[in-house]
Protein backbone atom coordinates (compact mmCIF):
# COMPACT_ATOMS: atom_id res chain seq x y z
CA UNK A 1 0.00 0.00 0.00
CA UNK A 2 2.69 2.44 1.02
CA UNK A 3 4.90 1.84 -2.01
CA UNK A 4 1.88 2.24 -4.26
CA UNK A 5 1.59 5.92 -3.41
CA UNK A 6 5.28 6.46 -4.14
CA UNK A 7 5.05 4.67 -7.47
CA UNK A 8 2.03 6.77 -8.42
CA UNK A 9 3.80 9.96 -7.32
CA UNK A 10 6.83 9.10 -9.44
CA UNK A 11 4.58 8.39 -12.41
CA UNK A 12 2.74 11.70 -11.89
CA UNK A 13 6.01 13.64 -11.83
CA UNK A 14 7.43 11.85 -14.86
CA UNK A 15 4.25 12.54 -16.82
CA UNK A 16 4.07 16.15 -15.67
CA UNK A 17 7.54 17.17 -16.69
CA UNK A 18 10.16 15.08 -18.57
CA UNK A 19 7.86 12.99 -20.76
CA UNK A 20 5.88 15.89 -22.26
CA UNK A 21 9.08 17.87 -22.88
CA UNK A 22 10.66 14.94 -24.71
CA UNK A 23 7.50 14.29 -26.71
CA UNK A 24 7.08 17.95 -27.66
CA UNK A 25 10.63 17.93 -29.07
CA UNK A 26 10.25 14.68 -30.97
CA UNK A 27 9.78 14.89 -34.73
CA UNK A 28 7.83 11.67 -35.27
CA UNK A 29 4.39 13.09 -34.27
CA UNK A 30 4.30 14.95 -37.61
CA UNK A 31 4.63 11.57 -39.34
CA UNK A 32 1.74 9.92 -37.48
CA UNK A 33 -0.37 12.66 -35.91
CA UNK A 34 -3.21 10.33 -34.96
CA UNK A 35 -0.94 8.04 -32.94
CA UNK A 36 0.71 11.04 -31.29
CA UNK A 37 -2.72 12.42 -30.41
CA UNK A 38 -3.64 9.20 -28.59
CA UNK A 39 -0.34 9.29 -26.70
CA UNK A 40 -0.97 12.88 -25.51
CA UNK A 41 -4.42 11.89 -24.30
CA UNK A 42 -2.98 8.92 -22.44
CA UNK A 43 -0.32 11.15 -20.84
CA UNK A 44 -2.92 13.67 -19.67
CA UNK A 45 -5.32 11.05 -18.31
CA UNK A 46 -2.64 8.92 -16.66
CA UNK A 47 -0.99 12.04 -15.25
CA UNK A 48 -4.19 13.25 -13.63
CA UNK A 49 -5.06 9.78 -12.38
CA UNK A 50 -1.68 9.19 -10.76
CA UNK A 51 -1.60 12.68 -9.21
CA UNK A 52 -4.93 12.16 -7.49
CA UNK A 53 -4.28 8.47 -6.84
CA UNK A 54 -0.92 9.08 -5.13
CA UNK A 55 -2.45 11.49 -2.63
CA UNK A 56 -5.49 9.31 -2.06
CA UNK A 57 -3.48 6.15 -1.43
CA UNK A 58 -1.05 7.96 0.87
CA UNK A 59 -3.88 9.51 2.88
CA UNK A 60 -5.75 6.23 3.26
CA UNK A 61 -2.69 4.22 4.22
CA UNK A 62 -3.40 4.02 8.01
CA UNK A 63 -6.99 2.82 7.62
CA UNK A 64 -6.81 0.26 4.87
CA UNK A 65 -4.43 -2.14 3.16
CA UNK A 66 -5.63 -1.07 -0.24
CA UNK A 67 -7.70 1.62 -1.94
CA UNK A 68 -11.00 -0.20 -1.55
CA UNK A 69 -10.72 -1.02 2.14
CA UNK A 70 -9.27 2.43 2.71
CA UNK A 71 -12.22 4.13 1.03
CA UNK A 72 -14.56 1.93 3.05
CA UNK A 73 -12.80 3.03 6.23
CA UNK A 74 -13.07 6.66 5.14
CA UNK A 75 -16.77 6.27 4.43
CA UNK A 76 -17.25 4.89 7.95
CA UNK A 77 -15.58 7.98 9.36
CA UNK A 78 -17.53 10.43 7.23
CA UNK A 79 -20.93 8.76 7.36
CA UNK A 80 -21.00 6.83 10.63
CA UNK A 81 -18.70 8.87 12.86
CA UNK A 82 -16.12 6.12 13.23
CA UNK A 83 -13.03 7.32 15.20
CA UNK A 84 -10.63 9.33 13.02
CA UNK A 85 -7.61 9.10 15.32
CA UNK A 86 -5.81 6.77 12.91
CA UNK A 87 -5.35 9.61 10.42
CA UNK A 88 -2.46 11.96 11.07
CA UNK A 89 -2.18 15.56 9.86
CA UNK A 90 -0.41 14.68 6.61
CA UNK A 91 -2.92 11.94 5.82
CA UNK A 92 -5.80 14.36 6.19
CA UNK A 93 -3.84 16.93 4.20
CA UNK A 94 -3.30 14.45 1.33
CA UNK A 95 -6.93 13.36 1.35
CA UNK A 96 -8.16 16.95 1.26
CA UNK A 97 -5.74 17.78 -1.55
CA UNK A 98 -6.94 14.77 -3.56
CA UNK A 99 -10.56 15.82 -3.09
CA UNK A 100 -9.82 19.46 -3.94
CA UNK A 101 -7.82 18.57 -7.04
CA UNK A 102 -10.58 16.26 -8.30
CA UNK A 103 -13.23 18.92 -7.72
CA UNK A 104 -11.02 21.57 -9.31
CA UNK A 105 -10.46 19.49 -12.45
CA UNK A 106 -14.13 18.62 -12.88
CA UNK A 107 -15.23 22.18 -12.13
CA UNK A 108 -12.73 23.69 -14.59
CA UNK A 109 -13.83 21.25 -17.27
CA UNK A 110 -17.47 22.29 -16.82
CA UNK A 111 -16.69 26.00 -16.54
CA UNK A 112 -14.58 25.92 -19.69
CA UNK A 113 -17.38 24.13 -21.51
CA UNK A 114 -19.88 26.75 -20.37
CA UNK A 115 -17.63 29.66 -21.44
CA UNK A 116 -16.88 28.12 -24.82
CA UNK A 117 -20.55 27.38 -25.48
CA UNK A 118 -21.58 30.92 -24.50
CA UNK A 119 -19.06 32.45 -26.88
CA UNK A 120 -20.09 30.09 -29.67
CA UNK A 121 -23.78 30.87 -29.18
CA UNK A 122 -23.14 34.62 -29.37
CA UNK A 123 -20.97 34.08 -32.43
CA UNK A 124 -23.67 31.99 -34.12
CA UNK A 125 -26.32 34.62 -33.35
CA UNK A 126 -24.32 37.31 -35.09
CA UNK A 127 -23.47 35.02 -38.00
CA UNK A 128 -27.17 34.33 -38.51
CA UNK A 129 -27.69 38.06 -39.09
CA UNK A 130 -24.47 38.96 -40.88
CA UNK A 131 -23.43 36.03 -43.04
CA UNK A 132 -25.08 34.65 -46.16
CA UNK A 133 -25.29 30.93 -46.94
CA UNK A 134 -22.65 29.82 -49.42
CA UNK A 135 -23.73 28.63 -52.83
CA UNK A 136 -20.74 26.29 -53.09
CA UNK A 137 -21.03 24.09 -50.05
CA UNK A 138 -23.45 22.90 -47.39
CA UNK A 139 -23.19 24.15 -43.82
CA UNK A 140 -21.03 27.01 -45.05
CA UNK A 141 -21.65 30.75 -44.81
CA UNK A 142 -19.89 33.75 -46.29
CA UNK A 143 -19.24 36.94 -44.36
CA UNK A 144 -18.29 40.19 -46.02
CA UNK A 145 -14.77 40.99 -44.89
CA UNK A 146 -11.66 41.82 -46.89
CA UNK A 147 -9.08 39.66 -45.08
CA UNK A 148 -8.85 36.05 -46.22
CA UNK A 149 -10.38 34.23 -43.26
CA UNK A 150 -11.68 30.67 -42.90
CA UNK A 151 -12.77 28.95 -39.72
CA UNK A 152 -15.29 26.52 -38.39
CA UNK A 153 -17.58 26.96 -35.44
CA UNK A 154 -18.46 23.57 -33.92
CA UNK A 155 -21.89 22.96 -32.43
CA UNK A 156 -23.32 19.56 -33.32
CA UNK A 157 -26.02 19.95 -35.95
CA UNK A 158 -25.45 23.71 -36.01
CA UNK A 159 -21.77 23.39 -36.90
CA UNK A 160 -20.84 25.87 -39.56
CA UNK A 161 -17.82 26.78 -41.66
CA UNK A 162 -17.31 30.50 -42.24
CA UNK A 163 -15.47 31.99 -45.21
CA UNK A 164 -14.80 35.65 -45.88
CA UNK A 165 -15.33 37.50 -49.17
CA UNK A 166 -11.60 38.20 -49.14
CA UNK A 167 -10.87 34.48 -49.01
CA UNK A 168 -13.26 33.66 -51.84
CA UNK A 169 -11.64 36.35 -53.98
CA UNK A 170 -8.08 35.24 -53.21
CA UNK A 171 -8.45 31.48 -53.75
CA UNK A 172 -8.89 29.40 -56.85
CA UNK A 173 -11.77 26.87 -56.75
CA UNK A 174 -9.43 23.95 -56.00
CA UNK A 175 -7.77 25.87 -53.17
CA UNK A 176 -11.18 26.74 -51.76
CA UNK A 177 -12.12 23.05 -51.86
CA UNK A 178 -8.92 22.25 -49.95
CA UNK A 179 -9.84 24.82 -47.27
CA UNK A 180 -13.40 23.48 -46.99
CA UNK A 181 -12.26 19.89 -46.77
CA UNK A 182 -9.74 20.89 -44.08
CA UNK A 183 -12.44 22.63 -42.01
CA UNK A 184 -14.92 19.79 -42.52
CA UNK A 185 -12.31 17.36 -41.20
CA UNK A 186 -12.18 19.37 -37.96
CA UNK A 187 -15.95 19.09 -37.63
CA UNK A 188 -16.24 15.44 -38.68
CA UNK A 189 -13.43 14.26 -36.42
CA UNK A 190 -14.85 16.20 -33.46
CA UNK A 191 -11.61 18.06 -32.85
CA UNK A 192 -13.42 20.62 -30.72
CA UNK A 193 -13.82 18.00 -27.97
CA UNK A 194 -10.04 17.56 -27.82
CA UNK A 195 -9.51 21.32 -27.86
CA UNK A 196 -12.01 21.69 -25.05
CA UNK A 197 -10.47 18.99 -22.84
CA UNK A 198 -6.91 20.23 -23.29
CA UNK A 199 -7.90 23.89 -22.87
CA UNK A 200 -9.57 22.96 -19.58
CA UNK A 201 -6.57 20.86 -18.52
CA UNK A 202 -4.30 23.86 -19.08
CA UNK A 203 -6.74 26.26 -17.45
CA UNK A 204 -6.86 24.04 -14.36
CA UNK A 205 -3.10 23.58 -13.94
CA UNK A 206 -1.43 26.40 -15.92
CA UNK A 207 1.89 26.11 -14.06
CA UNK A 208 2.40 22.47 -15.05
CA UNK A 209 4.68 22.15 -18.13
CA UNK A 210 2.66 19.24 -19.44
CA UNK A 211 -0.59 21.20 -19.77
CA UNK A 212 0.90 23.94 -21.96
CA UNK A 213 2.95 21.53 -24.08
CA UNK A 214 -0.01 19.19 -24.49
CA UNK A 215 -2.35 21.97 -25.61
CA UNK A 216 0.17 23.31 -28.12
CA UNK A 217 0.85 19.82 -29.45
CA UNK A 218 -2.85 19.01 -29.79
CA UNK A 219 -3.55 22.32 -31.56
CA UNK A 220 -0.83 21.49 -34.03
CA UNK A 221 -1.74 17.80 -34.47
CA UNK A 222 -5.38 18.48 -35.34
CA UNK A 223 -4.24 20.84 -38.11
CA UNK A 224 -2.02 18.07 -39.50
CA UNK A 225 -4.88 15.57 -39.31
CA UNK A 226 -7.18 18.00 -41.15
CA UNK A 227 -4.47 18.68 -43.75
CA UNK A 228 -4.17 14.94 -44.36
CA UNK A 229 -7.90 14.77 -45.06
CA UNK A 230 -7.66 17.70 -47.49
CA UNK A 231 -4.79 15.94 -49.28
CA UNK A 232 -7.05 13.00 -50.08
CA UNK A 233 -9.00 15.13 -52.56
CA UNK A 234 -6.71 18.04 -53.44
CA UNK A 235 -3.08 18.13 -54.45
CA UNK A 236 -0.29 19.05 -52.07
CA UNK A 237 0.59 22.13 -54.12
CA UNK A 238 -3.00 23.37 -53.92
CA UNK A 239 -3.08 23.03 -50.16
CA UNK A 240 0.31 24.71 -49.68
CA UNK A 241 -0.80 27.57 -51.89
CA UNK A 242 -4.04 27.97 -49.96
CA UNK A 243 -2.13 28.03 -46.67
CA UNK A 244 0.40 30.53 -47.99
CA UNK A 245 -2.28 32.85 -49.38
CA UNK A 246 -4.37 32.84 -46.23
CA UNK A 247 -1.36 33.14 -43.92
CA UNK A 248 0.17 36.05 -45.76
CA UNK A 249 -2.88 38.09 -44.89
CA UNK A 250 -4.88 40.73 -46.79
CA UNK A 251 -2.09 41.32 -49.33
CA UNK A 252 -2.06 37.58 -49.98
CA UNK A 253 -5.13 38.13 -52.11
CA UNK A 254 -3.09 40.21 -54.55
CA UNK A 255 -0.28 37.68 -54.65
CA UNK A 256 -2.83 34.97 -55.33
CA UNK A 257 -4.16 36.95 -58.26
CA UNK A 258 -0.71 37.41 -59.71
CA UNK A 259 0.22 33.76 -59.59
CA UNK A 260 -3.18 32.49 -60.61
CA UNK A 261 -2.14 32.25 -64.25
CA UNK A 262 0.61 29.72 -63.60
CA UNK A 263 0.09 26.16 -64.65
CA UNK A 264 -0.61 23.25 -62.36
CA UNK A 265 2.66 21.65 -63.42
CA UNK A 266 4.81 24.33 -61.87
CA UNK A 267 2.78 24.19 -58.69
CA UNK A 268 3.24 20.45 -58.40
CA UNK A 269 6.97 20.89 -58.91
CA UNK A 270 7.04 23.48 -56.17
CA UNK A 271 5.65 20.98 -53.72
CA UNK A 272 8.78 18.90 -54.06
CA UNK A 273 11.41 19.97 -51.58
CA UNK A 274 14.14 19.84 -54.20
CA UNK A 275 12.35 22.31 -56.48
CA UNK A 276 13.39 25.32 -54.43
CA UNK A 277 16.21 24.25 -52.16
CA UNK A 278 16.93 26.48 -49.26
CA UNK A 279 14.34 29.17 -49.64
CA UNK A 280 11.32 27.73 -47.94
CA UNK A 281 13.05 25.62 -45.35
CA UNK A 282 15.64 28.21 -44.33
CA UNK A 283 12.90 30.61 -43.46
CA UNK A 284 10.45 28.11 -42.13
CA UNK A 285 12.61 25.96 -39.93
CA UNK A 286 13.47 28.65 -37.45
CA UNK A 287 10.90 28.30 -34.73
CA UNK A 288 12.50 29.95 -31.74
CA UNK A 289 11.17 30.40 -28.24
CA UNK A 290 9.72 33.77 -29.21
CA UNK A 291 7.43 32.29 -31.85
CA UNK A 292 3.87 31.93 -30.65
CA UNK A 293 2.14 28.56 -30.62
CA UNK A 294 -0.09 29.10 -33.64
CA UNK A 295 2.77 30.48 -35.75
CA UNK A 296 4.83 27.41 -34.97
CA UNK A 297 1.85 25.34 -36.03
CA UNK A 298 1.62 27.04 -39.41
CA UNK A 299 5.35 26.68 -39.97
CA UNK A 300 5.46 23.02 -39.03
CA UNK A 301 2.42 22.38 -41.22
CA UNK A 302 4.03 23.94 -44.28
CA UNK A 303 7.41 22.33 -43.79
CA UNK A 304 5.66 19.00 -43.24
CA UNK A 305 3.91 19.44 -46.59
CA UNK A 306 7.04 20.66 -48.36
CA UNK A 307 9.28 17.82 -47.21
CA UNK A 308 6.98 14.94 -46.37
CA UNK A 309 8.40 12.09 -44.34
CA UNK A 310 6.98 8.57 -44.56
CA UNK A 311 4.39 7.55 -42.02
CA UNK A 312 5.77 5.88 -38.94
CA UNK A 313 6.21 2.09 -39.56
CA UNK A 314 3.32 -0.03 -38.30
CA UNK A 315 5.56 -1.61 -35.65
CA UNK A 316 6.53 1.78 -34.23
CA UNK A 317 2.91 2.93 -34.22
CA UNK A 318 1.92 -0.29 -32.46
CA UNK A 319 4.61 0.34 -29.89
CA UNK A 320 3.33 3.86 -29.20
CA UNK A 321 -0.24 2.58 -28.92
CA UNK A 322 0.86 -0.18 -26.53
CA UNK A 323 2.74 2.45 -24.53
CA UNK A 324 -0.37 4.62 -24.35
CA UNK A 325 -2.48 1.69 -23.19
CA UNK A 326 0.18 0.81 -20.60
CA UNK A 327 0.22 4.40 -19.33
CA UNK A 328 -3.47 4.14 -18.56
CA UNK A 329 -3.29 0.58 -17.27
CA UNK A 330 -0.43 1.10 -14.80
CA UNK A 331 -2.01 3.71 -12.51
CA UNK A 332 -5.37 1.98 -12.74
CA UNK A 333 -3.82 -1.35 -11.80
CA UNK A 334 -1.79 0.20 -8.98
CA UNK A 335 -4.98 1.63 -7.55
CA UNK A 336 -7.29 -1.35 -7.97
CA UNK A 337 -5.31 -4.59 -8.14
CA UNK A 338 -4.02 -4.62 -4.51
CA UNK A 339 -7.65 -4.44 -3.42
CA UNK A 340 -8.63 -7.35 -5.64
CA UNK A 341 -5.69 -9.48 -4.49
CA UNK A 342 -5.99 -8.59 -0.84
Amino acid at each position, binding site marked *: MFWTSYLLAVLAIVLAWPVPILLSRASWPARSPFTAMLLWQAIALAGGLSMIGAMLVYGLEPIGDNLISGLRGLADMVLFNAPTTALGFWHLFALSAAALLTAHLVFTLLL*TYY*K*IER*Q*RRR*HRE*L*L*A*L*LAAPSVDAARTVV*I*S*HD*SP*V*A*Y*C*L*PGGARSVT*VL*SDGLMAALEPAELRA*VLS*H*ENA*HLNQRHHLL*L*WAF*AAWRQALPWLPTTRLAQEAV*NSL*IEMLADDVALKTESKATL*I*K*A*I*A*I*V*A*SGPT*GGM*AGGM*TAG*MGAGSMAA*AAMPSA*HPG*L*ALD*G*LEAPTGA*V*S*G*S*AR*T*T*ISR*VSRLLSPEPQLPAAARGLVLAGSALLLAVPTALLIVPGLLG
Partner: protein
Amino acid sequence: MASLGELERAVMDLLWAGHEAATANTLRDRLATTTEAKGDAAGHEGKELAVTTVLTVLSRLEKKGLVERERGMRPHRYQAVSSREDHTAELMHEVLGSAPDREAVLARFIGSVTDSEAETLRKLLGHI
Protein backbone atom coordinates in the same frame (compact mmCIF):
# COMPACT_ATOMS: atom_id res chain seq x y z
CA MET B 1 -44.89 32.57 -42.31
CA ALA B 2 -41.16 33.09 -42.19
CA SER B 3 -39.31 31.69 -39.17
CA LEU B 4 -38.33 33.98 -36.30
CA GLY B 5 -34.70 33.64 -37.33
CA GLU B 6 -35.45 34.85 -40.87
CA LEU B 7 -37.58 37.69 -39.50
CA GLU B 8 -34.79 38.75 -37.16
CA ARG B 9 -32.50 38.94 -40.10
CA ALA B 10 -35.01 40.89 -42.20
CA VAL B 11 -35.69 43.35 -39.35
CA MET B 12 -31.98 43.92 -38.77
CA ASP B 13 -31.45 44.47 -42.50
CA LEU B 14 -34.16 47.15 -42.44
CA LEU B 15 -32.77 48.85 -39.35
CA TRP B 16 -29.23 48.76 -40.72
CA ALA B 17 -30.36 50.12 -44.08
CA GLY B 18 -32.64 52.79 -42.57
CA HIS B 19 -30.08 54.45 -40.26
CA GLU B 20 -32.92 55.80 -38.12
CA ALA B 21 -35.24 54.61 -35.41
CA ALA B 22 -38.48 53.01 -36.53
CA THR B 23 -41.65 51.81 -34.82
CA ALA B 24 -42.85 48.24 -34.99
CA ASN B 25 -45.69 49.42 -37.25
CA THR B 26 -43.35 51.05 -39.74
CA LEU B 27 -41.15 47.95 -39.72
CA ARG B 28 -44.15 45.70 -40.30
CA ASP B 29 -45.21 47.79 -43.30
CA ARG B 30 -41.72 47.78 -44.76
CA LEU B 31 -41.41 44.02 -44.22
CA ALA B 32 -44.70 43.53 -46.03
CA THR B 33 -43.51 45.63 -48.98
CA THR B 34 -40.14 43.91 -49.24
CA THR B 35 -41.66 40.44 -49.20
CA GLU B 36 -44.38 41.56 -51.61
CA ALA B 37 -41.77 43.01 -53.93
CA LYS B 38 -40.25 39.58 -54.23
CA GLY B 39 -43.52 38.52 -55.79
CA ASP B 40 -43.42 34.91 -54.60
CA ALA B 41 -45.79 32.87 -52.48
CA ALA B 42 -44.13 34.10 -49.31
CA GLY B 43 -45.02 37.65 -50.30
CA HIS B 44 -48.68 36.86 -50.05
CA GLU B 45 -48.28 35.64 -46.49
CA GLY B 46 -46.05 38.59 -45.71
CA LYS B 47 -49.08 40.90 -45.71
CA GLU B 48 -50.54 39.02 -42.78
CA LEU B 49 -47.46 39.64 -40.64
CA ALA B 50 -48.80 40.82 -37.29
CA VAL B 51 -47.34 43.78 -35.42
CA THR B 52 -47.11 41.57 -32.34
CA THR B 53 -44.83 39.21 -34.26
CA VAL B 54 -42.59 42.12 -35.16
CA LEU B 55 -42.60 43.18 -31.50
CA THR B 56 -41.60 39.64 -30.48
CA VAL B 57 -38.76 39.71 -32.97
CA LEU B 58 -37.67 43.13 -31.72
CA SER B 59 -37.66 42.05 -28.09
CA ARG B 60 -35.59 38.99 -28.99
CA LEU B 61 -33.13 41.23 -30.77
CA GLU B 62 -33.14 43.60 -27.80
CA LYS B 63 -32.28 40.70 -25.48
CA LYS B 64 -29.39 39.81 -27.72
CA GLY B 65 -28.15 43.39 -27.40
CA LEU B 66 -28.55 44.18 -31.10
CA VAL B 67 -31.46 46.60 -30.94
CA GLU B 68 -32.33 49.42 -28.53
CA ARG B 69 -35.57 51.17 -27.77
CA GLU B 70 -36.09 54.90 -27.44
CA ARG B 71 -37.93 55.14 -24.14
CA GLY B 72 -40.38 57.76 -23.04
CA MET B 73 -42.14 57.96 -26.38
CA ARG B 74 -45.04 55.82 -27.52
CA PRO B 75 -45.14 53.89 -29.70
CA HIS B 76 -41.55 52.81 -29.00
CA ARG B 77 -39.07 53.47 -31.74
CA TYR B 78 -36.32 50.89 -32.29
CA GLN B 79 -32.86 51.26 -33.76
CA ALA B 80 -29.79 49.11 -34.28
CA VAL B 81 -27.20 49.37 -31.50
CA SER B 82 -24.32 49.41 -33.96
CA SER B 83 -23.87 49.18 -37.68
CA ARG B 84 -23.53 45.98 -39.66
CA GLU B 85 -19.87 46.82 -40.29
CA ASP B 86 -19.21 47.24 -36.57
CA HIS B 87 -20.75 43.87 -35.81
CA THR B 88 -18.72 42.23 -38.56
CA ALA B 89 -15.60 43.88 -37.15
CA GLU B 90 -16.52 42.55 -33.70
CA LEU B 91 -16.84 39.01 -35.08
CA MET B 92 -13.59 39.22 -37.01
CA HIS B 93 -11.82 40.62 -33.97
CA GLU B 94 -12.98 37.56 -32.08
CA VAL B 95 -11.73 35.31 -34.87
CA LEU B 96 -8.40 37.01 -35.55
CA GLY B 97 -7.68 38.24 -32.04
CA SER B 98 -5.58 36.37 -29.53
CA ALA B 99 -8.03 35.74 -26.70
CA PRO B 100 -6.64 32.79 -24.72
CA ASP B 101 -9.64 30.51 -25.25
CA ARG B 102 -10.22 31.51 -28.89
CA GLU B 103 -8.49 28.35 -30.04
CA ALA B 104 -11.08 26.24 -28.22
CA VAL B 105 -14.07 28.24 -29.44
CA LEU B 106 -13.39 28.02 -33.15
CA ALA B 107 -10.81 26.38 -35.40
CA ARG B 108 -9.16 28.70 -37.89
CA PHE B 109 -7.70 27.45 -41.14
CA ILE B 110 -4.52 29.38 -40.33
CA GLY B 111 -3.53 30.73 -36.92
CA SER B 112 -1.82 34.08 -36.45
CA VAL B 113 1.61 34.36 -38.03
CA THR B 114 4.24 37.00 -37.39
CA ASP B 115 5.19 39.52 -40.08
CA SER B 116 8.44 37.75 -40.92
CA GLU B 117 6.70 34.41 -41.35
CA ALA B 118 4.04 36.00 -43.51
CA GLU B 119 6.88 37.47 -45.57
CA THR B 120 8.51 34.04 -45.92
CA LEU B 121 5.21 32.50 -46.98
CA ARG B 122 4.67 35.32 -49.47
CA LYS B 123 8.10 34.62 -50.99
CA LEU B 124 7.23 30.94 -51.14
CA LEU B 125 4.02 31.89 -52.93
CA GLY B 126 6.04 33.85 -55.47
CA HIS B 127 8.08 30.72 -56.22
CA ILE B 128 5.07 28.49 -56.65
